[in-house]
């Protein structure tokens, strides 16, 4: 029987759920820049969960977490376009997980991995929220010029959070896990 791609192990299921809860909860903390967009420290959660558990967890935590924020604190509307943006961001942040030299739980990483994480996450944020802005123009009929302002504000703010909070948190976790083991791998 062919295995479905959604047939992940229990830990992945739980990681998606907990990641979504964290992202959804922390998304309520916003430093507003322009209406509907602001500096959201919660983006760092996507960086951490993406790096720890991979692109699938990043994608689904981003999507579910965003839906939860919208349902509970978003004024009763789910902004599907921005849900997709968060999901794509989470996906991009998880790409580095595929590299065999990168494992946060074992405290292993190379400089290249960290650079990959920083770049792929930033690109995913720009692409993801870019798609959100374009979808807003087509689905909601927002004015394109206004969407560009929101896009630039959100992209710059989110990339800053990703690089400053997210990547440094991952570095912190790496260091913490490295300290826990006195063993060295000889090759």
């Amino acid at each position, binding site marked *: 029987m062919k295995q479905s791609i*959604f047939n992940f192990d229990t830990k992945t*299921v739980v990681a998606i759920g*907990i990641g979504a809860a964290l992202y959804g909860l922390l998304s309520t903390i916003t430093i507003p820049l322009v*209406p509907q967009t602001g500096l959201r420290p919660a983006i760092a959660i996507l960086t951490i969960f993406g790096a720890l558990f991979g692109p699938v967890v990043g994608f*689904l935590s981003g999507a579910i977490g965003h839906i*939860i924020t919208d349902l*509970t604190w978003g004024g009763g509307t789910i902004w599907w376009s921005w849900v997709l943006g968060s999901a794509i961001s989470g996906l991009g942040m998880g790409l580095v997980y595929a590299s065999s030299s990168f494992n946060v739980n074992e405290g292993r990483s190379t400089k290249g991995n960290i650079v990959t994480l920083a770049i792929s996450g930033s690109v995913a944020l720009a692409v993801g929220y870019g798609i959100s802005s374009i979808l807003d123009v087509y689905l909601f009929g927002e004015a394109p010029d206004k969407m560009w302002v929101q896009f630039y504000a959100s992209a710059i703010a989110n990339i800053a959070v990703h690089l400053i909070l997210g990547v440094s948190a991952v570095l912190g976790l790496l260091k913490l896990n490295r300290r826990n083991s006195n063993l060295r791998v000889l090759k």
Partner: protein
Amino acid sequence: MSKAGMLYIDSDTLFHRMDGAAKLIVLAVWTVVVFLFQDIRIFVPLFLIGIIMLLSAKLPWKRIRLLVWLMIVFNIFNSLFTLAITPAYGSEVSGSTTVILDLGYNVLTLETVVYVLTLSMKYMSLMPITVLFIYTTHPTRLASSLNRVGVPYKVAYAFSIAFRYIPDMQAEFRNISNAMQARGLGFGKGEGTLSQRLKHFVSIAIPLVQSSLHRIETISNAMDLRGFGKHSKRTWYSATVWHREDYIVIVTSLIVLIAAIAWRVQGYGTFWYPY
């Protein structure tokens, strides 16, 4: 169970009895219909129908008040923002120009005001149905209905876990933040510069993430012990049987969807300007 029902309000109305999957289909159809059009003459009736449905669900105003206010405040800010940045956008869409105010860098046109009202009504018409859905569907039933409309059960279960653990995490967040504040770290406005506050935020986030990672281990071990994910299908304790009203509602919403698409394809429902 009380923890899981963070937003859910227990009652016995038509919408509480309806199956979650049926409500999910109504919500999806409603969203698609709203996305298709750009006409205030469609959004106002939709909004009113939504409000009537919301009233019939007998939700206490006290509980939904905050969401309604958030939506209104959002619309006001969004409208002002649109008016300030693109004061002539409405003329681009409608093809006519009626200047009402000269702003210097651009002119504010009557068409833009109508456009902003249309947009606000578009958002407002989505609100009642979403509020209705989240307040009348129990989170565990939400997971089983997601599974019923075709979402893989592991994804549906992740949804349910997220809803289940938000209150726990809120409590944990409060504990850590109290502990940090007792050590003299401020998070509020005026308790430090922006960069300081961000730094203090990290000092909450790191323990919160650490404890969440431990929590993931505990929960997934507990689930593994109970054999979660052994089979490719799963049944739900909270699944309900579809009644006649569920079928009626689904058939009606599908007819509405087809009618709306047919109407849109013929070119109706684009931006409507009365003058």
